[in-house]
């Protein structure tokens, strides 16, 4: 078991190292950040000084070596634009993204599962057909367009909620979040809904498929024969069984909600990591782009590692294979 974990961790390290090579060289061969940074009034000497200060006059392998040395000590470099450690910048923007992703997930579950359940139980009703048609739109409409339409409808026409930005922060159990104030929630509603739309559709489809499959199963028939109420059959027996795939997929989707909320954050001027990333890409703030990608890589590698270890605990066959190898 220990050998297995050590081996898995070594593999994970190798993956992180290989990704650092790909990410660092990929980001560093594109474009020229110097002309993005210096003022147009700067003369040639100023420009050369800026190149030297950023270390861009060194050969790329040397830049990579310096990056690795820093990374080993937890320093992913300083942002070209803000002059602050890239890691600090990203961590600073993380709570905003987390609360957005979390709210979107909650919305997906609260809206998606009941609708999916209904559509699965009454597949031929008009409402069900309407729900399924709407879920197709949820899948296929581009996020940026839907985001703008939501703003036009709820913020400009109806004036129910603000169009952009993050609201006031509240404090609860030591956490600072805009989830804890009314103003914060009103700012959060539209971006969370926009980010959730695709996930809602996903939850609807998964739940519906699960319900339709489960309703024909023997255990449901048996429960009926036993005289259980429909309510109890659905809410206890069916729900328990269909939740497994839904929870698995939603859990995985949470990762992508965190990592790739770029479009939504840009449209709603939400000060999260995605916004930071897109700004860094546009202005070629290489250390921030590299640090962001490295964090995401680390994030996914860690999840995989944990899943692997859990499997080996849950399923003895994985351990046996490991010993045989």
């Amino acid at each position, binding site marked *: 078991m220990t050998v297995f974990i050590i081996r898995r961790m070594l593999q994970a390290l190798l993956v992180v190292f290989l990704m650092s090579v790909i990410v660092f060289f990929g980001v560093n061969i594109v474009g*020229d950040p110097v002309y993005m940074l*210096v003022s147009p009034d700067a003369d040639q000497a100023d420009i050369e000084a800026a190149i030297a200060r950023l270390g861009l006059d060194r050969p790329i392998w040397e830049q990579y070596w310096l990056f690795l040395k820093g990374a080993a000590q937890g320093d992913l470099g300083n942002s070209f634009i803000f002059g602050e450690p890239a890691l600090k910048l990203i961590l600073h923007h993380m709570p905003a993204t987390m609360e957005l992703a979390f709210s979107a997930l909650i919305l997906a579950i609260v809206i998606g599962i009941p609708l999916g359940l209904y559509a699965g139980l009454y597949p031929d009703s008009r409402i069900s057909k309407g729900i399924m048609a709407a879920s197709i739109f949820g899948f296929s409409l581009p996020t940026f367009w839907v985001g703008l339409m939501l703003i036009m409808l709820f913020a400009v026409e109806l004036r129910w909620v603000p169009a952009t930005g993050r609201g006031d922060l509240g404090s609860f159990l030591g956490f600072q979040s805009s989830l804890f104030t009314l103003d914060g929630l009103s700012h959060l509603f539209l971006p969370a809904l926009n980010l959730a739309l695709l996930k809602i559709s996903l939850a609807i489809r998964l739940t519906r498929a699960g319900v339709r499959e489960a309703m024909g199963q023997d255990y449901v028939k048996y429960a009926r024969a036993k005289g259980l109420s429909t309510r109890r059959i659905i809410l206890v027996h069916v729900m328990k069984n269909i939740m497994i795939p839904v929870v698995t997929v939603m859990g995985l989707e949470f990762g992508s909600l965190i990592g790739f909320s770029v479009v939504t954050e840009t449209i709603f001027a939400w000060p999260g990591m995605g916004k930071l990333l897109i*700004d860094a890409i546009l202005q070629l703030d290489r250390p921030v782009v590299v640090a962001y990608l490295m964090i995401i890589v680390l994030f996914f590698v860690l999840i995989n590692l944990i899943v692997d270890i859990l499997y080996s605990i849950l399923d003895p066959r994985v351990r046996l294979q490991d010993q045989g190898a």
Partner: protein
Amino acid sequence: MRKLTAATAVAFGILAIGAGAASAEKLTVGLASEPTSLDPHFHNLGPNNAMSVHIFDRLIAQDEKQRLSPGLAVSWQPIDDLTWEFKLREGVKFHDGSDFTADDVVCTMARAPEVPNSPSGYGTYLKGKEVIKIDDYTVHFKTEAPYPLMGNDISTIPVISEAGCAATTEEFNAGTAAIGTGPFKFQSYTPGESIVLTRNDDYWGDAPIWSEVEFRPITSGPSRVASLLAGDVDMISGVPTTDIATLEGNSDIQLSQGVSNRVIYLHMDQFRENSPFVKANGGGDIVNPLLDVRVRKAISMAINRDAIVERVMEGVALPAGQLLPEGFFGVSDKLDVVAYDPDGAKALLAEAGYPDGFELTIHGPNDRYINDAKIAEAIAQMLTRVGIKTAVETMPRSVYFGRASTGSPDGLPEFSFILVGWGAGSGEASSPLKSLIHTFDKDAGFGSSNRGRHSDPETDALIEEALATVDDAKRQELLAQATERAIENVAIIPTHFQVNTWAAQTGLSYVARTDEYTLATGVVKE
């Protein structure tokens, strides 16, 4: 009875809120681009400079047309060839209550070029200048050679208090060191979210009408417009040209427009016999026709500037015939916009030996200037019409500017024919002349953005003479002459001046600025 009381209380509450909002005079502004720091010496960048004007005064202020006016200095003049004397304003207090004196000026000028990790500092404006305190309200700036642009250079440097001179950029961003003499005081700063300032009631100049100002960066154009329409913000900067017509028809919204100091122009390869993106018809090699002034003139005549302004820019631009719009110091009153004349262009091309034209590629950015990629496409069509078959290649600015400046294998500009823009930060004509027209000269710091490497000794001499002439009238004349000569030689082809648009709720208007800054002090109620 109790119900009635409750209802009355609610009604009064609403009234109180309403009254409070009216008297608080809060202004909320949606910004197209966000400052990268509140340290006024950290990053020499438009949005940063605009924000720092609120908190930190300069010795010399630039008004909405970038004309110099007294700031923390009441007067500035040369007392000999190498010395400028600045008399400082007395009785000015910093936000922390301390007095403004010459010591603050001396330490500001020492800190400005030396901020650690600064992406682009203010050393450019302070090179070769030594600042000496004479008494508490007099300082001298000494130079090695006569230097006329002292006022323009010094007007770019925000003055901080002596206490702040030792502070780090983090302390400025946290607000503890963000202490100036400006019309607004630091309240809070959350990067990516908001910057809140409050009125400085002890301001030495005209007190601002707004007791509190909140700036919110909303970089996405459509979202910015939507935030204005939704009433989240009172004013926005950088209105997308495509939205201007719709907003004009909206009675709740009021637009403010003004020409900027930014000229959009074309640079042509004037230093290579074999230019990489100029080919003979059919793709063969050819001696670079852009070296011939007649060809350059023909290109200028083939461009229909009115069409660019009317169709591509939706009317929100001015056709350009020189480096700065009229009204700026150093512009020539003899230069007109080159008239659209496709037949004349064809005739000139034939005279130069290219009756059937040649092949060319225009390169440009697609995310830097207003409608930049569309302009490049329009120009390519116009040139193709007179026989110069022009292909278009646009790219993100992060890739473009590096390649356009030093992209060729030997570190020279990579392209043959490019679309660029230039904003004259100093607000007068020596800025573009020195950087775009003067021969590329690394040691002297001339021609740093001369990506076509145009070189004409006579123009150079005029520019250098102007830069050493302290007498304003004489310098104005020399700058105008240099501009005329550069345009005559078609060193560059100016196409148009950008016009900037701000939009606000009806009842508010903005005094449009040529430097594109968005200042709360410029927002007025009608």
